[in-house]
């Protein structure tokens, strides 16, 4: 059984027509299933766990990058694949996975091309794409025996698992979410790339495990508060995801 999890913002009337189109396409493809809605009443983790316990064959995140990350945090492992139907703005994760729009996403679900990818873990918080901070009051100690310190204040620091189109990577760099590595990117002093408004990066380090050490709180993604020390780790093959032909890896 397919379980479609709609994000809360899809309750807005402006998405009604899009959802109707998607539902019609899903029915045509014989992919009909159950619809669950994220909301205040039930926690995402309970919703996803309950559906997997009831025998969900695929969990499909319907919404944007935030929806995908919310559901990824609740997926218990790679046994049940995650599908994505992108709606609205901010769908960079879907784009990286080769899923460009709502209706082609339904066809991609039907083709069911499943890839295993890694996830990043900070504390007990899992992420598929990246976590970022502008804090500079911490040291990053990498598993391989060295530490990284910043000589200037305030650059954006990102820890990346899956590269999205908003990151302008230096020429010659190739990232793959299947290689079991995370990348630490430090933003360049120059302003953003004006034409594409993408962030340029001056430093890149690959690692499997690192520790963030700070004496004052550091906040990643306005969500994860680190105080003291916390481990960041790459978890290889932690998620099965349905991808399109034009995926970026």
């Amino acid at each position, binding site marked *: 059984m397919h379980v479609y999890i709609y994000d809360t913002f899809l309750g807005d009337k402006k998405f009604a027509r899009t959802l109707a189109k998607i539902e019609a396409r899903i029915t045509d493809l014989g992919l009909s299933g159950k619809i669950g809605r994220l909301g205040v009443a039930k926690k995402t983790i309970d919703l996803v766990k309950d559906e997997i316990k009831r025998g969900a064959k695929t969990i499909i995140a319907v919404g944007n990058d935030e929806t995908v990350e919310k559901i990824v945090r609740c997926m218990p492992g790679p046994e049940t694949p995650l599908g994505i139907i992108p709606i609205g703005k901010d769908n960079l994760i879907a784009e990286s996975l080769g899923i460009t729009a709502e209706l082609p996403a339904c066809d991609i679900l039907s083709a069911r091309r499943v890839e295993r990818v890694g996830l990043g873990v900070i504390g007990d918080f899992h992420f598929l794409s990246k976590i970022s901070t502008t804090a500079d009051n911490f040291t990053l100690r990498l598993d*391989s*025996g*060295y*530490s*990284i*310190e*910043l*000589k*200037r204040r305030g*650059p954006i620091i990102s820890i990346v698992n899956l590269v999205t189109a908003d990151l302008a990577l*230096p*020429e*010659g*760099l*190739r990232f793959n979410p299947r290689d079991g590595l995370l990348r630490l990117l*430090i933003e*360049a*002093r*120059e302003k953003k790339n004006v034409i594409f408004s993408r962030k*340029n*990066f*001056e*430093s*890149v*380090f*690959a690692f499997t495990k690192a520790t963030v050490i700070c004496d004052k709180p550091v906040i990643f993604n306005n969500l994860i508060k680190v105080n003291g020390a916390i481990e960041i780790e790459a978890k290889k093959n932690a998620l099965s995801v349905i991808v399109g032909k034009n995926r970026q890896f």
Partner: protein
Amino acid sequence: MFSKTNDNSVMNLKEVETIVGPSVKVKGDFHCGGNIIVEGEVEGSLICGNMLQIKNGSKISADVSAKEAVIGGEVNGDIKVNGYLEITETAKILGDVEAGIISIAKGAFFNGNCSMTKDRQSNGKEEKKTAERGEQ
């Protein structure tokens, strides 16, 4: 910024694994199996399994080891390169250098001993002997 280079090096790094930018200081034993570009500071030891490029403006206080290297920055420590070592005119090296093949540009500052890798020397002699036998 990565496509531009101030060093007149012949090395072309098509795939880079690590970039130490100008605003970063790395402390400790820095090991990497892939290609590395250094534009910042490194303290401790620097071991690169493949190609290493130390750019003008960077400061390395460490012993350096790599398969091949282009050095255009400041290095305080010994350098060991198995293959080709290129020292460009902006380089400042205070330490001993050991390499298979070496080129030092005019204007480079180098204060230390220089030796060629033994394996390379013996290979060279064998190649010469084989060539002489071939001629006979």
